[in-house]
């Protein structure tokens, strides 16, 4: 999937001429034996972009850098959050000992929410450069991607970057790397992407060590989609790696997961500008424009084949994206609801993992219940809606998906706490994740304490070196979607890193806690929490609301309840004074304007029963980091 937004205005995909005609310009097939497909696995700030730049320099594709610089300027959200920018999938010519090679550098997104996309990028490669900052050592996210690469049987080239830094500890880091992937620490390449030192040798090593692609050139074509983006001029552009046969503009293409066929408008390679070609052969990496206008019709992980000569079996590993975290998104100004719908429709063109459906809340009005791959995905979508579409939104506390078994054998899937079944429940299942934490050994105690408090089960603990530890926990997803990462960072002074992947579900003793104002439930505040934490959630939420909701002319009880059982209660005392002491000549205009403002403000009030609650109170109560999972 692509997080970057539609490519409007970037000019790259403005049609600039027809694809070359096969008969006039026969394209020499690239011999698979001269192809090397590889990616770079690295943590944010460990120098991946700089290394990619240096490779473009060395291979003579300098102008690409300018393009990328422009490109980066548009990616505010990713840059602010330090998410890896996809550096393009670039075809690099390289010569070793007089022989010509074609290197394909395939980029990978760098966040845990998008581990599936990462796995598809890795599946398109035979090798991976494991790039580690020699001053910082390996991070959890990198380690997670490394494990993915190993599962995909990729050849790993361990590389230490930033060896020019005074703080670099290359020997220690090399030792750590060889402890993880085996091999001799002396074989770990040492480079400086900044100065270019060692990069030429690295490219030579890619040629020497990464296996060339192997496939059947005469079989029906099979190509893996590892990225799919929407472009306003061309519709969906898919980035593919061909495994067998040949993809050509002469054949209609067919998506094997949907069975739908589309006209093949164009195929080509990235050099680094898109260059149309007549076809793509075994081992080649390039793009296909299938003439569809929605990325859901050409999803990452799907196999492209020819409609006329259809492959019998798809490449393995396709997975339909499944939302892991749900949240309600509501416009602060109710009249912006149609704009929100339009904006979500547009985002979905480019984000196959985003799911949404209309939802109505008594407290917040009309909005959408949206499904996301994870919290970061949620935040990115929310920020894009606000920045690119100018919307002001409230999002409800994120929740995970629960499976509830009811008496009589019925099963209920809950994506919204409001839909929690009322019947007799026999068992509840919650999603769990395998979490991997990397941290300096001095923080082991405090981190284990945190994981314990979040109902984690310790799986294993390994020392990567004398002072770095890898800990694996099984944690309920619900326990980490709120503030776990922040808590982890603050307890370890920022030194711990975290990665996780879905690991099925577990039975759990969960309850739904409702928050009631004057006896009326406020749907936006209902939460599913573990039985042991229900009370503390109830107390925290009622106290917070007591502070946020202005006093009314009557006393307002705020209760937290499980079913009909009240577990916490606060009172908002009745307001006793609401009058201006003085109202003389000079005060009248001021007073009237205040009245007009109050009347305006009333329009932003939601009425729960008889209680008037300013929108701001809901926002403040919902925007806090503290969620039902924390205590």
């Amino acid at each position, binding site marked *: 999937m692509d997080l970057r937004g539609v490519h409007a205005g970037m000019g790259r995909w403005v049609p600039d001429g027809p694809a070359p005609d096969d008969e006039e310009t026969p394209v020499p097939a690239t011999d698979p034996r001269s192809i090397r497909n590889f990616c770079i696995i690295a943590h944010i700030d460990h120098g991946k972009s700089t290394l990619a730049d240096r490779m473009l320099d060395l291979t003579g594709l300098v102008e690409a850098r300018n393009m990328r610089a422009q490109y980066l300027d548009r990616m505010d959200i990713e840059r602010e959050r330090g998410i890896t920018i996809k550096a393009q999938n670039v075809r690099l010519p390289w010569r070793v000992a007089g022989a010509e090679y074609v290197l394909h550098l395939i980029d990978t997104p760098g966040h845990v929410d998008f581990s599936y996309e990462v796995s598809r990028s890795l599946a398109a490669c035979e090798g991976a450069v494991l790039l580690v900052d020699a001053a910082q050592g390996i991070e959890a996210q990198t380690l997670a991607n490394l494990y993915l690469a190993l599962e995909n049987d990729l050849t790993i080239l361990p590389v230490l970057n930033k060896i020019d830094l005074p703080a670099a500890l290359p020997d220690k880091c090399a030792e750590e790397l060889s402890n993880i992937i085996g091999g001799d620490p002396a074989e770990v390449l040492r480079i400086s992407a900044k100065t270019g030192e060692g990069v030429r040798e690295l490219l030579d090593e890619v040629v020497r060590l990464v296996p060339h692609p192997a496939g059947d050139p005469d079989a029906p074509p099979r190509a893996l989609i590892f990225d799919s983006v929407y472009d306003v001029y061309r519709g969906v552009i898919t980035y593919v790696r061909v495994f067998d046969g040949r993809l050509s503009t002469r054949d209609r293409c067919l998506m094997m997961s949907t069975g739908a066929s589309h006209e093949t408008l164009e195929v080509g390679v990235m050099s680094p500008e898109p260059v149309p070609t007549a076809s793509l052969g075994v081992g080649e990496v390039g793009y296909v424009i299938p003439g569809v206008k929605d990325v859901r019709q050409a999803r990452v992980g799907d196999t492209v084949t020819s409609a006329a000569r259809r492959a019998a079996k798809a490449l393995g590993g396709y997975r339909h994206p499944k939302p892991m975290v749900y949240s309600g998104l509501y416009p602060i100004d109710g009249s912006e609801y149609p704009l929100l719908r339009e904006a979500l429709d547009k985002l979905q063109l480019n984000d196959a993992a985003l799911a949404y459906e209309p939802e109505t809340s008594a407290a917040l009005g009309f909005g959408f219940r949206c499904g996301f791959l994870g919290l970061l995905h949620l935040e990115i979508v929310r920020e894009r809606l606000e920045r690119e579409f100018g919307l002001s939104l409230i999002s409800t506390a994120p929740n995970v998906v629960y499976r509830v078994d009811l008496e009589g054998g019925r099963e209920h899937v809950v994506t919204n706490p409001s839909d929690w079944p009322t019947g007799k429940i026999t068992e509840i299942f919650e999603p769990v994740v395998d979490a991997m934490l990397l941290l300096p050994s001095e923080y082991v105690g405090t981190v284990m304490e945190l994981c314990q408090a979040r109902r984690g089960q310790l799986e294993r603990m390994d020392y990567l070196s004398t002072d770095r530890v890898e800990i694996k926990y099984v944690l309920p997803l619900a326990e980490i979607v709120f503030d776990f990462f922040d808590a982890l960072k603050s307890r370890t002074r920022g030194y711990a890193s975290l990665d996780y992947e879905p690991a099925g579900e577990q039975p759990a003793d969960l309850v739904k806690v409702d928050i009631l104002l004057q006896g009326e439930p406020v749907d936006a505040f209902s939460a599913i929490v573990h039985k042991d934490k229900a009370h503390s959630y109830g107390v925290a939420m009622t106290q917070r609301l007591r502070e946020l909701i202005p006093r009314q002319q009557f006393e307002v009880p705020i209760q937290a309840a499980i079913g009909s059982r009240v577990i916490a209660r606060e009172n908002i005392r009745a307001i006793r004074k609401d009058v201006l002491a003085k109202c003389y*000549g*000079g005060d*009248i205009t001021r*007073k009237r304007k205040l009245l007009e403002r109050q009347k305006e403000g009333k329009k932003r009030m939601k009425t729960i029963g008889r209680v008037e609650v300013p929108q701001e109170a809901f926002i403040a109560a919902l925007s806090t980091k503290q969620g039902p999972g924390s205590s």
Partner: protein
Amino acid sequence: MWGGGTLGGVPSALPAGEPVPADGALPERARESVPDTPLGLYVHVPFCASRCGYCDFNTYTFSELGTGVAPDGPPQSPTLPSGAGPGDYVQAAIVEMGLARAALGGVNDPLVSVYFGGGTPTLLPPGDLARLLDAARDLFGLTVHAEITTEANPESVDERSLTTLREAGFTRVSLGMQSARPHVLSVLDRQHEPASVGRAVSSARAAGFDNVSLDLIYGAPGESPADWQASLDAALALRPDHISAYALVVEPGTRLARRVARGEVAAPDDDDLADKYLLADATLEAAGLGWYEVSNWGRPCRHNLGYWLGANWWGIGPGAHSHVGGVRWWNVKHPAAYARELARGRSPGHGREVLDPQTRRVERVLLETRLAAGLPLDALPPAWRAGASAVVADGLADPAALAAGRVVLTRRGRLLADAVVRRLIGD
């Protein structure tokens, strides 16, 4: 000083509005109201010996104006910026009265009230106040029973000065007492000692004033309910004809606001203020001073009633507000700018608003609801009358009065008067 009784009220922040014509001319529609509407004059005297920590009124100490000296009497220092001193002020105020006379037309329209507020009007020599009143009398005339008030600080008057004022035609004195408790006066930065209020009242009586008012403030940091009761009792012991009692408001930009923000003193608490209001009402009613406006008890101030009943009044002086026939305007704030405009023959008006009928209805509701006489139901358009029944149902207005066609606040309703107004105007 405490602008308490200040009808002009003159808050320091001016609203936004349209420009006032250079000659101060009024729209035809406003002028038409003049013959049939009582006219009052407010004279804002923008000087104080020192600024109190809670005060955000348009007032200046002499050191702020550049003399650096604030003796008992008004200084006439040559270092004052041109036009900013008391002498220039009196001159300019009289010029503005002439401008008012012209703008209101030549009809016979004597003043029903004149009110000198501030600031501290009695920082001016009594002769200056007399000159100002004489000028108003010459230009407009006064009705037979015209009410002529000046605000005064207890320590700024004595029997001699009060006698001069009484002889010049003043009929009423409003003294800024605020509290009988020294620690409360101190937290309010008031300069006088409690005993000076008694002396000032005696002096006023001796000078022949039969209408004396006291201003009180409740809810100051550190004031206990017993302190407040003591202040009420002390005020009543002086047998005033009228008492204004105001909840302390922490206005933005004041020294008090900064002290609250820094946590040096506690902000007034609404529940405490409500308790003290009820205490005041019970004590004053028992002493025979009935409420006639939310913060006022006793013999009504006719000038102030003008504000609440939609009369016409012209506010003279820097930052003063005026109202004539649905047009409200306000003067430039600084004494020097005020004097300069008038010296150039221009209106000192800084901005104005011409109210449309709907806005005038809203203002009528918000003002008359504050009065014991209440708001006549026929002042409410039919669509708003449901609100009147609702406030009665909530115990905020009197059912018998409603049956008689008026919205009259209950005691609890007075404490929630703003909420009642919002309900009445159909929020």
